[in-house]
């Protein structure tokens, strides 16, 4: 899954700045961040905790506006959230009052995904099966484990065929084993359905395992401090000398 050559970048982030207002004055959180993401590329952003990673993601996904600078997706300015780019976050947002199938059908509408209920249900069930939730379509989220809940959230995103996935610490609430399993799972699905992915994480190994390119953020007010291309074939071995060398280089950037 190498970066595709494209005349136009999928996402263009130019010189984003954001302050948090307070009584004493503005606290600068993002101090001018610029980068591009190509169509089909998997870019990971790693940074120390509290450096404004999530704020940056919120701005790029359209949930917040920057104080200055701009975000352009497919050449048009980002004005707000849309199904074109779905956010997967740490704590998840699978609706607890809907079944797995109803959750997956939430983002589907008559115009795009078939006017008949059973057409949409079939589409939802297809994606439930893809993430390994076959047989759990009628279950409620509180009846599922943390890993299954995360699968449901991924499926709910994939079913609307978003061009971009914004992943904000997607697997960090899971235990270590499930975390690793979900990485592999995500890569398997991404091989089937091509998406552009922007991943925010504090986990350097997670970034090395999945991303095509890794951007390292500085402490607040955050800027992009370094960028690493990951030229390792999938499936990647984190214990390989190349991966370890990369890990150390990134950790050095993070001051460790």
């Amino acid at each position, binding site marked *: 899954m190498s970066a595709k050559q494209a005349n136009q970048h999928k996402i263009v982030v130019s010189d984003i700045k954001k302050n948090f207002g307070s009584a004493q004055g503005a606290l600068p959180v993002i101090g001018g961040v610029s980068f591009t993401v190509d169509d089909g590329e998997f870019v990971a952003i790693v940074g120390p905790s509290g450096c404004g990673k999530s704020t940056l993601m919120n701005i790029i*996904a359209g*949930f917040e506006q920057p104080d200055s600078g701009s975000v352009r997706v497919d050449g048009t300015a980002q004005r*707000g*959230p*849309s*199904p074109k780019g*779905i*956010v997967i*976050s740490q*704590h*998840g*947002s699978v*609706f*607890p*009052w*809907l079944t797995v199938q109803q959750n997956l059908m*939430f*983002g589907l*509408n008559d115009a795009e995904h078939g006017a008949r209920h059973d057409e949409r249900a079939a589409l939802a069930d297809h994606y439930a099966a893809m993430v390994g939730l076959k047989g759990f379509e009628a279950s*409620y*989220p*509180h009846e599922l484990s943390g890993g299954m809940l995360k699968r449901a959230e991924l499926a709910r995103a994939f079913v*609307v065929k978003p061009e971009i996935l914004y992943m904000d610490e997607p697997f960090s609430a899971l235990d270590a084993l499930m975390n690793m399993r979900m990485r592999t799972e995500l890569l398997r699905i991404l091989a089937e359905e091509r998406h552009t992915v922007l991943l925010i994480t504090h986990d350097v190994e997670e970034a090395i395992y999945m991303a095509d390119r890794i951007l390292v953020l500085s402490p607040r007010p955050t800027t992009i401090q370094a960028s690493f291309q990951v030229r390792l074939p999938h499936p990647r071995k984190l214990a390989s000398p190349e991966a370890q060398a990369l890990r150390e280089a990134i950790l050095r950037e993070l001051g460790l």
Partner: protein
Amino acid sequence: MNPSSPHQRLAKILPPLLVIAAIVIVWWQVVLRSESAIFPTPWQVLTGAWELAEDGTLWEHISASLLRVGIGFGLAMLVAIPLGLWMGWVGGAYRTFNPIFQMLRPISPIAWIPLAILWFGVGDVSPIFLIFISSVFPMIVQTTSGVHTIERRYLRAAANFGVSRTVLFRRVVIPAVLPEIIVGMRIGIGVAWLVVVAAEMIALRSGLGYLIMDSRNAGNRYDLVIASMIIIGVIGLLLDGATRLLERLKTVKWRYVR
């Protein structure tokens, strides 16, 4: 939740039954020893209640009270739920109406009795009005706070999927608030039942509250007074149990399992 054996179930209900039995025995002994001419024994209460049940008046009183609660509480729900949703969703509506509701809420519904009689006279409307007043405020407050405590991640997800306002309300806001609405209903039905009995004590010709006052006035029938009190307690328990059943609905269970 676990299927319990008959033995375990017995172990659960035995202690409260023993407490009730102890109260009845003590009561009986005290009445016998004090040789009270007015205060009835448990047996007299039982026969008194049986008398009323047999001639049918008991059922008339019970259904009169339940009907008033049903109408007053139903109207309160019709007003409180939409109003609470609106106040929760629209900041301006909250700032405008919340202070007045917070001020009206602590006024005991009993304090409204003179006004109820002035406005609606002595009839069925006054107690219905009092029940409405007593249950509408807790349900408004609960619904509003339900909207305020919807987790933002769910609203964000809905915005992300680009759903219409109708879908947002129908599929996210209302189901998210439903558990709080049910809590509000439990509080509301509880106070409504308290108030109907009090309201019926004021000059009406039916209802369990009337039955209590009438039994006392018509020849100190304290056996019937106590029988009515016990019946009121049991019905209150059943009403609460009925609203509790709503908490078992699949779509609201998530709120209570964790």
